């Protein structure tokens, strides 16, 4: 066809342009990584340098020993873990009935879910804090988890996928005398791998990177998540220890980047799917 006869020159240009764009996009990460192996004095002496003149692991050693990286990492993992489990379970349950059952109040429920998709976080921020204080939950794990345990987006995602599961499958199971829980757990859920993967990734990502709420709801070192700890270090007494901060940044983003590179197919599905479908 005509298009295949086009000269390969245009592709060469595309590769050059895209490679340049990707390199520009990734420059901050590269510089962050290289900087994390530099001493404070080197960073101050040469703030635009690339390769560390005498690479040091001291910044990482500080984080892993005195500064309690493991502790913050564990907090982030606990919060993200429970948030993911809650979303997977509860959003699928409500998604299932919204997609496959008819009951009074269904339209209202789904309408509320859709409406709240657009509510900015700051609207619920103040009352949420008052509520959490009233429940005496400030500075506890539940305060960091419960407000995110279910999300309208999760419900939407699961419902949309479950609409595509044939009714006949569910009907046949009912004929065979399977109860609703059994149908949900044994027939519907095993078919929902793709949206569950997407939801797990999106939830984990937003929980891991969540910053503002944990900054307010966690008030002691024992409950800080990684971004909160890092932000407090970057404004506190260590604010000028750039090497330390860069190492902290690398440690904060590495887990999520590793996860992303391995699961990038699902990330892409998720982003394209939530938008278009």
């Amino acid at each position: 066809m005509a298009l295949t006869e086009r000269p390969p020159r245009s592709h060469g240009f595309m590769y050059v342009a895209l490679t340049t764009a990707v390199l520009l996009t990734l420059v901050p990460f590269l510089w962050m990584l290289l900087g994390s192996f530099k001493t404070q004095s080197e960073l101050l002496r040469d703030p635009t340098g690339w390769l560390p003149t005498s690479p040091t692991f001291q910044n990482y050693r500080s984080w892993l020993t005195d500064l309690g990286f493991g502790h913050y990492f564990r907090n982030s993992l606990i919060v993200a873990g429970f948030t993911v489990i809650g979303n997977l379970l509860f959003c699928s349950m409500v998604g299932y009935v919204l997609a496959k059952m008819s009951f009074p109040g269904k339209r209202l429920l789904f309408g509320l879910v859709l409406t709240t998709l657009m509510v900015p976080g700051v609207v619920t921020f103040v009352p949420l804090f008052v509520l959490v204080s009233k429940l005496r939950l400030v500075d506890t794990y539940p305060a960091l988890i419960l407000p995110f345990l279910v999300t309208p987006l999760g419900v939407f995602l699961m419902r949309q996928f479950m609409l595509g599961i044939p009714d006949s499958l569910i009907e046949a199971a009912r004929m065979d005398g399977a109860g609703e829980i059994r149908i949900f757990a044994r027939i519907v859920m095993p078919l929902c791998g793709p949206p569950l993967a997407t939801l797990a990734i999106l939830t984990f990502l937003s929980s891991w990177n969540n910053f503002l709420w944990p900054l307010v709801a966690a008030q002691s070192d024992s409950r800080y998540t990684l971004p909160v700890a890092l932000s407090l270090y970057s404004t506190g007494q260590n604010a000028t220890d750039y090497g330390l901060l860069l190492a902290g940044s690398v440690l904060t983003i590495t887990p999520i980047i590793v996860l992303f590179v391995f699961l990038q197919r699902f990330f892409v599905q998720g982003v394209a799917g939530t938008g278009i479908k």
Partner: protein
Amino acid sequence: MATTTAPTKRAAPVGAGAYTMQGRRRQALIAWLFALPFVLFFGIFMLLPLVSSFVMSFTDFRSSDVQNPLNVDLVGLGQYAALFENPQFRQSMLNTAYFVVVGIPLTMAVALALAVALNSGITRFRTAFRVGFYTPVVTSIVAVAVVWRFILQDTGLLNQALTWVGVVGPDWLNSTTWAMPSLIVLTTWRNMGTLVIIFLAGLQNVPVELQEAAFVDGANAWQRFRRITLPILRPTLLLGAVLLSVAYLQFFEEAFVMTQGGPLDSTLSVTYFTYDQFGFGEYGFASAASYVLFVAIVLLSLVQFRAFRSLD
């Protein structure tokens, strides 16, 4: 969006007992039991705060009233009136508008250019490119802020690069003129990856035959893009614009970690203003500000739907 009208294929209940009165009641009970955990958490942590915030915005609720909410007085639209008379709030609205008006077209244009390049028929490294552009999306703002502050400082990488072309760059984050553009570029960098993926999915819908026919008829690349790709891509562009405007109107975290709203409030956004008022304990005032933002988000989304529709 399209979802509200999505056909619920045979939503009618299935199963033998479902058509009897008793069967229907039983199914309703089961359905609500399934929905119960969601309804519980959604009700307590989403709907309740949403309504309280609305009610609070008509009161003089302060942090000192938390222990004794009966001290609170209704003030009608008083908080809203005070809000629009507050010069700092008006400044924050202007800043947010600046951020949105420049940031959304910039992000869309960059993402569209990258998506079109990725879709131009290249076969190798597509995944690697996509991963590269998406990486900033998955990383914590707090972590990337550290390195961006370093890059944007007076003696940083950016200004060093500018000297190669003979330009003396400003102290980006400490300039009332340049702090906002810097944050816009940073935010574009952090969000373009999402739009690249959405646009790429949309570009798959552009029929190759149509492109080839136009090519045979002598249309050049720009004409084909303008007359074929863009019109087919319109729903996708609308989606991107709406997603971005919901996110960009809430602009906050970048300013919080990079400039603390400064210098001289030049990067103070509406969300930032609200957060500050919350910190001062002015809960009623903060709630009113947050509802102004909510209304703005809904309005802008509606306007975009209208604008894109009327192009048909």
